[in-house]
């Protein structure tokens, strides 16, 4: 779950009164945020992935205002005119192949409260969180914040030769050339590849040629350093995914909206996927919530007023609409895609109680699958034959595969460790491991398990089939092929079939002491004596007989008695 550490005083500043730890925990329980911990100055908060807005002090404050009923409805985030009609993003077609999307907005502080250090730090902290989530580590989208009053619009987003770029990086004091920056700067080492194509790199410059930033790597000090006291900020996002660009901007806007700032959309010109007046990025969206949908999902019809109140408490704005409500949602709620998303807010705005649940009479008759019932018979039969019943993993180790030459299980492309690296194609691979782990115990040892295996199958949709095997091992002084054959015969008798054995060379067995068993011509079982090299490697001092029945192959061949 995404999480962040928030400054408590910045949250408190948005609330009508200070909250105790317990109050805070209780208020957050019916929301999608959870208090993970706190000390005097900070709150550790985690959220579900759809409510990243709650990981900013501003977003959490708005939510708590609603929970406390200190404020309701959509927070005011007035859309105003741009201070300079020249403000716009001019997009050069050269960016199309690398990072085509750009959008942004301008925010203006309340007259008496210009940007302060706390708000700037909050915005930068939240910006980094957005980079790591919605931005997919800046690949899909990355944000930049600039001091508008020190820039000359319009702003040009282009791909230009690295050789011609000179700027002072935001974290430095000396001007560097593009080649040097991309060669040496740690941010370039990390994100440089996202913003360059061969000898060119992405730049955002103002009309005076001042470099604002090298998206998505780093801002410049001259054009990209916002400071306390600034009243107008330019916020932009570039990326490969339009949606991520829009979402990242919308999320960041909550920081300013919660502090009474106003917003002005910035037009995008020149062929960007987000070309236009920029208004959709910052304006509330409208979603129609049909009452039938809401009541159907909730399982209860609530009065229209109550629904309006609930949505208002969730910091949305709802108005009656034919057959439901028209709901205004702010830009920092990208999780609200359709009517069902808004319905969730309406349903969850008040705590859900277990006693609201109903248990409807079942319209169906519960039962196990016939195949599962079939498998269960073999499991019980092996138990009755004295086989201990392990529960082994489908994933087996490199060592387990290597000790059975000839076994060819599917291998994982990206295993976490050599211990879980292949998908067993026979239970034998797991069961030999069980014997290895039990060499300290006395013999004879008998194990038996019904479990899944996965075998390559070009005809299957995923390229492999899941099959269920009944596997048994007998390790004892005198165990041999006859024991294995007797197990197969006994288990097959459970389903009233008789198999015919034929010699076979099987992985891990002694040549000449292994067989395949067929029923009605279909191979249904493999059996044999385990080769001494394997036993020695396992540390098993007695012979081992092995039998394994492919229940998936067997099931269609028998008329199943209902168990």
């Amino acid at each position, binding site marked *: 779950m995404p999480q962040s550490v928030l400054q408590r005083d910045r949250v408190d500043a948005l609330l009508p009164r200070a909250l105790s730890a317990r109050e805070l925990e209780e208020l957050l329980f019916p929301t999608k945020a959870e208090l993970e911990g706190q000390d005097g100055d900070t709150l550790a908060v985690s959220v579900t992935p759809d409510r990243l807005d709650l990981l900013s002090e501003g977003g959490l404050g708005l939510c708590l205002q609603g929970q406390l009923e200190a404020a309701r409805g959509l927070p005011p985030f007035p859309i105003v005119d741009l201070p300079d009609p020249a403000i716009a993003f001019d997009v050069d077609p050269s960016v199309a192949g690398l990072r085509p999307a750009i959008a942004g907005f301008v925010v203006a502080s309340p007259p008496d409260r210009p940007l302060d250090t706390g708000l700037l730090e909050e915005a930068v902290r939240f910006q980094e969180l957005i980079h790591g989530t919605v931005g997919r580590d800046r690949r899909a989208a990355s944000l930049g914040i600039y001091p508008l009053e020190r820039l000359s619009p319009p702003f040009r987003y282009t791909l230009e030769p690295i050789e011609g770029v000179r700027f002072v990086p935001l974290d430095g004091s000396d001007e560097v050339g593009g080649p040097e920056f991309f060669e040496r700067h740690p941010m370039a080492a990390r994100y440089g590849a996202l913003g360059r194509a061969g000898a060119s790199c992405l730049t955002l410059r103002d009309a005076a040629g001042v470099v604002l930033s090298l998206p998505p790597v780093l801002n410049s000090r001259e054009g990209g350093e916002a400071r306390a006291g600034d009243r107008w900020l330019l916020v932009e996002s570039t990326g490969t995914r339009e949606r991520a660009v829009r979402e990242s901007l919308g999320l960041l806007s909550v920081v300013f909206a919660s502090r009474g700032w106003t917003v002005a959309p910035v037009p995008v010109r020149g062929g960007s996927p987000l070309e236009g007046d920029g208004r959709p990025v910052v304006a509330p969206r409208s979603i129609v919530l049909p009452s039938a949908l809401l009541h159907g*999902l909730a399982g*209860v019809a609530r009065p229209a007023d109550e629904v309006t109140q609930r949505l208002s408490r969730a910091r949305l704005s709802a108005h009656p609409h034919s057959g439901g409500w028209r709901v205004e949602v702010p830009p920092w709620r990208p999780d609200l895609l359709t009517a069902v998303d808004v319905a969730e807010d309406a349903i969850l705005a008040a705590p859900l109680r277990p006693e609201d649940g109903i*248990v*409807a009479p079942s319209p169906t008759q519960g039962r196990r699958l016939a195949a599962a019932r079939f498998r269960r018979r073999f499991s019980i039969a092996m138990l009755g*034959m004295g086989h201990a019943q*392990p529960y082994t993993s489908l994933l087996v180790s490199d060592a387990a595969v290597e000790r059975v030459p000839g076994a060819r299980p599917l291998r994982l492309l990206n295993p976490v460790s050599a211990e879980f690296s292949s*998908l067993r194609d026979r239970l034998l691979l797991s069961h030999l491991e069980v014997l290895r*782990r039990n060499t300290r115990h006395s013999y004879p040892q008998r194990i038996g398990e019904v479990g899944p295996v996965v075998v390559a199958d070009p005809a299957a949709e995923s390229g*492999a*089939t899941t099959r269920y095997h009944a596997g048994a091992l007998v390790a004892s002084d005198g165990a041999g092929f006859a024991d294995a054959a007797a197990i197969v015969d006994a288990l097959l008798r459970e389903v009233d079939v008789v198999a015919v054995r034929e010699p076979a060379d099987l992985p891990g067995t002694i040549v000449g002491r292994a067989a395949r068993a067929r029923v009605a011509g279909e191979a249904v079982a493999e059996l044999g004596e385990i080769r001494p090299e394997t036993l020695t490697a396992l540390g098993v001092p007695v012979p081992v007989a092995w039998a394994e029945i492919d229940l998936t192959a067997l099931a269609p061949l028998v008329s199943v008695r209902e168990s």
Partner: protein
Amino acid sequence: MPDASPTDASDPAASLSLSAPERTVLRALQTAPRTPVEEEALANELSLGPDQVRGSLQRLRAKRLALLEEAHPIARLITPRGQLALQRGLPERRFLEALDRAGGALTPDAAAAAGLDEEERSAAIGILRRRGWLADGVPFRRTPAALPATERLPEEVVLGQVATGDDDVDEAIVSALERRGLVRTERRSVKRWSPSEEGRRLVIESEGETLIGPLTPAVLASGAWRTGRFRPYDVRAAVPFRAAPHPNPYAQWLEEFEEILIGLGFEQAEGPLLETEFWNNDVLFMPQDHPARSLHDALSVVGVSGRPPSPELLARVAAVHEGVPMPGETEPVGPGWGTPYDPGIAARPVLRSQTTPVSARLLALHPTPPFRRYSLDRNFRREEVDARHGIEFTQCEGILGADGTSLRELIGMFGALSEAIGIREMKIRPSYFPFTEPSIEGYVRHPRLGWIEIFPGGMLRPEVLRPLGVEVPVAAWGIGIGRLAMIALGLNDLRELFEDDLDRLQGVA
């Protein structure tokens, strides 16, 4: 190595063997008219030496065939000096008699002449004076209190009692006689034996008789068992270890949980463990570039290639992802993810990361309600293995769908399930899953662990249902059943669910 096989030929139980003297002694105990019998008497009765009888009895006792009662009675015996006193009279008696014979005054010389030696004379004078029967001074004279000559002294009475074995004696006088060396006290050990219940019932072969050992086919066929007697076995002797396999505790617990679901009307469903990304993610409205689908989180397999589902279904799911109308429709289901849908990604094989694909396949195959299905099966995530996390884990997926199915029904189902596993307190909070909206999480209060998240679920999104052709609301949930099992089985480590210790599986440890 001991053979613990229940199917191997059964070893005969250890025979209960008795030596000849043991048989003789036991037979004597079995036939004694009254028990217990004193060991000494038994030895006298049998033509065996006392040591042989004693040894046999002890061995029979070790075999739990004979019972011992041991007593330690007190015996008082007359010493040789006491015998002499009985014959000649006590010194004080003889002194008084000599005094009487001397006419009431006895000089020391006369006393010596009466047969009393120096020691006896001193003892007699001391005793008689302490009793006030002899006046001070010499010659010795009786006092008026002295006992008449016709009466017996108390010491004489007690000495006589001891001599005749009469235990009803004055203990103080016995002690005085002991101090005078006339009587001594001994503690005796008396062992009395009787046969135990087993000893009484035990069949003892007679001289020349051969008892039947194992009941072999030959014995059965010959009919020897009709006339012969069976050699008894030592039923307490150690026997070979026999394994008694139990159902695997985890598998058994999962079955019990299944029974709860079946009782609530759920039918089982299954699906492949190696899925395509289409079924594992796309059909569940997981964006194709979602981080959880990367190689960092999802387990991929080499050497196999998958293929997309039917072109019709693929087109519908692609339309939902792209936010365009599905084929034949005019309105999109929703805005989608705003990125082009890649059928190549849809065909990639991946180990199933959740059980929900099973439900999706089921709904695609049978979109007609009602639905009440469960799938309790293995899933895989790319996690580091520790006590709380595993690459392979079991999830219990369920779907409910019919006209009118709602979140309330889902909450009701959570309540029914938690009650069925014995937990009554529950609370609900919002949650998030890409394929459900609303999404909730049921917490239950465990007596030891406090509030724990158990029931994640929600209502399947239209983006999931519409492409599958489902026209009723469907509630879905997926329980991390391993966690519940750990609580129920009292385990602290998820890895213990994959139990393979044979001792524990056989109920030994």
